[in-house]
């Protein structure tokens, strides 16, 4: 990892601000390894985030980086990509950031099928503000604003963006971080809106309240419940990992470029 750090990190910013055992660092490393494998031009890579613990990621990375407002990362990214489609735009968001306050931008980026590679770091909680429930907190789990257990049901994020029009969806975990890197590469290669749900652990704001004694226990949970499609039937807390859908549809910036060309040709 030390060589990736020298190459892709703003080393003066390390050590990072995340708590001991937090999954954000592991997922950051997986993203960096994917970008390294893709051999992308650092000057053309843009990493955009919202607000939350996970959204602090771009600050540590040596690309064009943009830490926006809570929930709005995809809307900023849409402006970037639409104005300069040759940039490679990755968007990193927390589960609250992307699915609570940012839910509308999420479904609209998916509907437009705009070529962004979005990674939602799902730790099932609002980490940054100290553990309130998010739209991804499982039913019955505890959070400071669900002191009696969460009454609501979480989103099925990948189903939601698929219904909204996204063309690539996949899931991995901090534990399955090599798979995560591979899926990020596939997502990048999909010419359209791609979403990766990266399941992560927040030992401080979620784990403590929900009977996980150590960060390692949370990773173990990920290991045990993340199931590759077809491997075995899903039960209770299990979830699929790997690619979940992969489709084709017109991509927004390409369609817009076609329009420009059409108009250049005098057509209206």
């Amino acid at each position, binding site marked *: 990892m030390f060589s990736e750090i020298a190459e892709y990190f703003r080393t003066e910013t390390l050590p990072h601000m995340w708590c001991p055992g937090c999954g954000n660092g592991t997922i950051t490393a997986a993203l960096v390894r994917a970008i390294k494998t893709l051999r992308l031009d650092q000057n053309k890579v843009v990493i955009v985030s919202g607000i939350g613990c996970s959204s602090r990621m771009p600050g540590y990375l040596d690309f064009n980086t943009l830490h926006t407002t809570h929930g709005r990362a995809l*809307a900023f990214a849409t402006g970037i990509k639409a104005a300069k489609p040759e940039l490679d735009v990755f968007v990193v968001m927390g589960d609250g950031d992307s699915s609570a306050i940012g839910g509308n931008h999420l479904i609209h980026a998916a509907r437009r099928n705009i070529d962004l590679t979005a990674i939602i770091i799902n730790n099932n909680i609002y980490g940054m503000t100290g553990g309130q429930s998010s739209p991804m907190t499982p039913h019955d789990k505890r959070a400071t604003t669900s002191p009696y257990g969460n009454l609501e049901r979480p989103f099925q994020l990948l189903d939601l963006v698929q219904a909204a029009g996204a063309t690539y969806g996949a899931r991995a975990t901090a534990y399955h971080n090599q798979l995560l890197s591979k899926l990020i590469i596939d997502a990048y290669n999909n010419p359209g809106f791609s979403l990766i749900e990266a399941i992560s652990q927040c030992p401080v704001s979620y784990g403590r309240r929900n009977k996980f004694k150590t960060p390692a226990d949370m990773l173990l949970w990920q290991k045990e419940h993340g199931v590759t499609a077809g491997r075995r039937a899903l039960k209770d807390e299990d979830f699929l990992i790997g690619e979940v859908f992969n489709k084709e549809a017109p991509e927004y910036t390409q369609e817009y470029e076609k329009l420009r060309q059409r108009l250049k040709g005098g057509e209206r």
Partner: protein
Amino acid sequence: MSKARLMQGNEACAEGALAAGVRFYAGYPITPSTEIAEIMAEKLPLLGGTFIQMEDEIGSMAAVIGASLTGAKSLTATSGPGFSLKQENLGYAIATEVPCVVVNVQRGGPSTGLPTSPAQADVMQAKWGTHGDHPMIALSPSSVQECYELTVKAFNFAEEFRTVVIMLMDEVVGHLREKVELPESLPVENRKKPTVSPDQYVPFANDPSLIPAMANFGEGYRYHVTGLTHGENGLPTGKPEVTAKFLKRLTQKLDPYLERIQLWEEAYLADAELIVLAYGCTARPVREAIDAARREGLKVGLFRPITIWPFPSREIAKYKGRKFLVPEMNNGQLVGEVERVFGFEGVERLNRIDGELITVTEILEKIREVMSHVQ
């Protein structure tokens, strides 16, 4: 001067943006600003630019900032309710010093209010609508011709000073069609780009100009942009010393340039016992009323701030001892800035908030009334 045309205020604003080199528009429709979006939707793809209709005003403001970071001059237009929604990201653009122009064609408020009627009720909001201290430039045109010219200026200010510039229009000037004669060309400013190599580049440097050079995303200068208080390198910090330096530069960055930024028109001020301070649509009946008053021998003058923010207080302060009358299509907003210079006394108001333009007669009567008290 090119030949005369009939043009609508919103159209003139759009054409001004194009003349200034706008290449990106993100917006969400709202009366009475929508024509600006519609013209952009038609023209931008013809010019290699991009129009995108976003899911809401919040997203529009975000997209505009994103696009501007890539180097595209960027515009959005809205009205009251949408302007309220843009406030968070508007503050973000100011804090991160990303140039862009936001048009607010004011309509009757509060809330949904009177969507198709004029008002000047977002004047204070333009300055104070977002949380936290921040600098602000807002321009207020009172004719179609000025919608064009000020939009060019708005982009120039935005680019030169790396900030948001608000075009504070109103339904009257936005929807008015008027004869205009567009200049062949107007001076166009572009953002100052870094002249140093990427490893020497300090994106938010405490430059003596107070305006650091700005690199576009994708051009080799990799840096970090955040709405958290940040150091010169752009990285977040909570250190009071660094914070203080950053916020000082940010909030004072316009100060050295006030003379160029503060624009106004004046008439008959030399001997005026009463100065009518009016802007935007209200300045139109005021001009007629002042002419009429002068014909009656009343010593009345006009001060029309074109730059509403930063308010030209120093200029106003020169007229200490004169009476002021501030007619506005609101409940009294910019009048407060005149009061801040002199105190309540000697500052009169004339307000109308029913969606109808103040009439020449109303102003003339008020002038007569005020003048009758001037010994």
